[in-house]
């Protein structure tokens, strides 16, 4: 299962049973990327994510969901319905050989299954259980219905993201939830931190553990300065276009380049910055007065006006070049600027090609492969994470996994006849 990649060998030999709905799938895919043998118990009808788009074929075939394939790379699929009355024996035998059970979903359903997991843990004390629910397994909000959007709202992310208010201070656009399941990403990352910590704990003690993860709390930790600004200063940050939410209005960062694309060009008002931006203006053939005595005098006399003037010169500079030209020229001068790229533009970028950030995964239904982000690091030379294979077909590994757990062909057929697989 594991590959030669540095971090993809870290969890080699660790068997993880992943139950529940789509919320926990990102945790599972990261663990598969670290080399664990992740077995997705997705029921006869398959994971919810099989019915979420985009799809590679127009018929929305659950086998062709990119949502499922993105979040289930490298896993095995077993079509066991864990809530089926006949599933207990199967789950028990699987858990006897497993290291970790992850179960994601609404607290009520997960808590019901947790009783069985605890029995399994008594039989296999090295077992680590991780429940992954909207609010954890207790508290007044425990049973609220949530989605990624509502988590980003309640957890504070949306309050910091969006657009500037009108000049009179009134917001006429809504707070924004950044796209692509970010609440589940954040919580999934915390789940992996928790599970790898528990595996380390087990190395020291021989004991498993039971982890009760709250998506709401995970999202809440992820708002940077918002909470300290309130705790220490009693102030609330306000959202602004394309830059950090702040207690007081700050100057814009986003600027439009010649090709209509955006550049994130923020200014720290340092001497180095003024000098190199002056150089860039000169190199772009734009007359400027940033080295003049008049400008220096303006800085002394009226810093705010000087900032406005300087910022206008930066606007002019950015507008004279393409976004990518601005990015590379600014970086060559040590400025922290970047072009606002589409994510897919990085696939052909030589930097990420050198690092092996993307791994081609075969899509037979398309008769081609698609490049997936698989790694966030290298070992100095090669990517540190990769996947031995793509996402599984529904139930692709049912026979294999149940056979390894000691079920005969006849027993597997009986389970199928009872509707458990």
């Amino acid at each position, binding site marked *: 299962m594991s590959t030669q990649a*540095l971090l993809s060998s870290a*969890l080699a030999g660790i068997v993880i049973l992943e139950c529940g709905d789509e919320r926990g799938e990102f945790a599972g895919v990261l663990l598969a990327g670290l080399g664990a043998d992740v077995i997705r118990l997705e029921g006869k009808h398959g994971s919810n994510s099989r019915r979420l788009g*985009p799809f590679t074929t127009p018929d929305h075939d659950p086998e062709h969901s*990119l949502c499922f394939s993105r979040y289930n790379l490298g896993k095995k699929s077993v079509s066991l319905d864990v809530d089926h009355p006949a599933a207990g024996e199967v789950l028990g035998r699987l858990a006897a050989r497993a290291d970790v059970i992850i179960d994601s979903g609404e607290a009520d359903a997960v808590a019901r299954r947790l009783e069985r997991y605890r029995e399994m843990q008594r039989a296999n004390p090295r077992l680590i259980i991780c429940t992954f629910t909207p609010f*954890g397994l207790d*508290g007044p*909000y425990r049973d*609220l*219905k949530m*989605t990624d*959007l509502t988590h*980003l709202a309640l957890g*504070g992310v949306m*309050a910091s*993201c969006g*657009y500037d208010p009108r000049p009179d201070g*009134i917001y006429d656009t*809504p707070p*924004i*939830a*950044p796209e692509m399941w*970010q609440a589940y*990403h954040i919580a999934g990352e*915390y789940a992996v931190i928790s599970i*790898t910590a*528990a595996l380390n*704990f087990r*190395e020291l003690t021989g004991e498993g*553990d*039971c982890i*009760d993860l*709250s998506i709401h709390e*995970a999202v*809440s*930790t*992820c708002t*940077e*300065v918002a909470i*300290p600004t309130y705790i*220490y*200063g009693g102030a609330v*940050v306000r*959202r602004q276009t*394309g*830059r*950090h939410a702040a207690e007081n209005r700050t100057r814009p960062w986003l600027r439009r380049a010649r090709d209509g694309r955006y*550049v994130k060009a923020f200014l720290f008002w340092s001497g180095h910055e003024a000098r190199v931006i002056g150089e860039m203006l000169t190199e772009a053939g734009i007359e400027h007065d940033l080295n003049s005595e008049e400008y220096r005098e303006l800085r002394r006399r009226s810093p705010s006006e000087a900032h406005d003037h300087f910022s206008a010169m930066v606007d002019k500079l950015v507008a004279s070049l393409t976004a990518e030209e601005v990015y590379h020229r600014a*970086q060559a001068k040590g400025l*922290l600027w*970047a*072009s606002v790229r*589409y994510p897919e533009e*990085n696939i052909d970028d030589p*930097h990420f090609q050198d690092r092996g*950030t993307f791994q081609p995964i075969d899509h037979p239904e*398309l008769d081609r492969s698609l490049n*997936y*982000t698989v790694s*966030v*690091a290298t070992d100095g030379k090669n990517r540190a994470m990769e996947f031995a294979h793509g996402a599984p077909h529904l139930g692709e590994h049912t026979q294999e996994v149940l056979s390894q757990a000691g079920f005969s062909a006849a027993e597997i057929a009986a389970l199928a006849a009872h509707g458990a697989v």
Partner: protein
Amino acid sequence: MASAETARPRPLDGERVVDLTKIVAGPNATRMLATMGAEVIRVEWNDDRALDLLRAIRPLAPGGDPHSLNRSGLFNNINTGKYGITLNMNHPQGRDLFKRLVEKASVLCENYSPRQMERWELGYDVLSKINPRLIYLQISGMGKSGTYDAYVSVGPTAQALSGLTHMSGLPEPMPPAGWGYSYLDHSTGYYGAIAVLAAILRRRRTGLGCYIDLSQTETGLMVSGTAALQAQLTGHHTARHGNRMQAADWAPHGAYPCRGTDEWIAIAVQNDAQWAALAAELGAPEWTRDSRFASAAGRKANEDDLDRLMAEATKDAERYDLMNRLQRRGVPAAAVQKADDRCERDPQLKSRGYFVPLPQSEMGTWNIEGFPAKFAKIPVDVGGPPHRGAPMLGEDSDAIYRELLGLSPEEIATMREELVI
């Protein structure tokens, strides 16, 4: 180096982390390691080039010396649970001491610009000879290997490049809203912690240390979901969709205004039953019976009108009251909470003990954002081994130089006088 002993073992007992990180991304990683029981030693120096800017950044704890470097609330929140020493890395003797620290450590984390450690002749090739079991986590904006190894980055840079800025906001022609904070400083911290936890597990099993070259931009790509896949499939660049759901016909799906100043509620209707419940809670106004909204596909196809009507219907409601009423009917809905709401009005965070009061030596005791999971056995503590907030600058220098490196009080005094420590 007083440590608040806990009776039970912690996952990272015996691990000593030399922490050369600054600002947010790196310190977030080492915060997680301290939470799991590692002895994290922040190595800092107080001059214009070396000082962690976060020490001087607002919000500051009220009272006390406003120029103190020990009163930043954000620094306290992110560096909780660590020890702190001063060490001048630009002094040859300082680098010698640093090597002695590395010899006694098991992990090194740093997030300087990518070539800095080599300039000091302290690359992995050198340090791994001093300590072959060392796990060296290097965090940089783009990643050390690859064509952009000299490029510099902060969170917003990586967010722009990875596509996350583009994928947050209302559709064009509106500009991207982006993230209102350095989301990728959080994420990179999580991946840094995951990488080190996985590498420690690997080393505990194999005895092998390693070098990990973590890229902040790659973490952005890892959380960019299915966007780049869809773009490869369709040949069209990734679009922006505001708060609307693209993976399924979920509508209404957005943030809608409520009574008060800049108060909003997020509502996500996933199916016909939730739509019927929402309509009933709104008093079944005539527009909810419009045939265009009778099916999920119809609601999705007419989302502009639906959102306009929803905004009219919610604008006089109190956001928590509407949230509670909708939740009672099983409709996913949540108030868009700001920081004050989460601190003062979120019964769930309160009930779960999310905020953890921890003492800091100059500021006194303040609430720190906690870890979002409860463990049955592992004594997870954001206060780390010292069970306290962030260290004051150099707070533990004497103890660590004396107890860990065996320096005499005279040697410490001389080195301090010579600006080595």
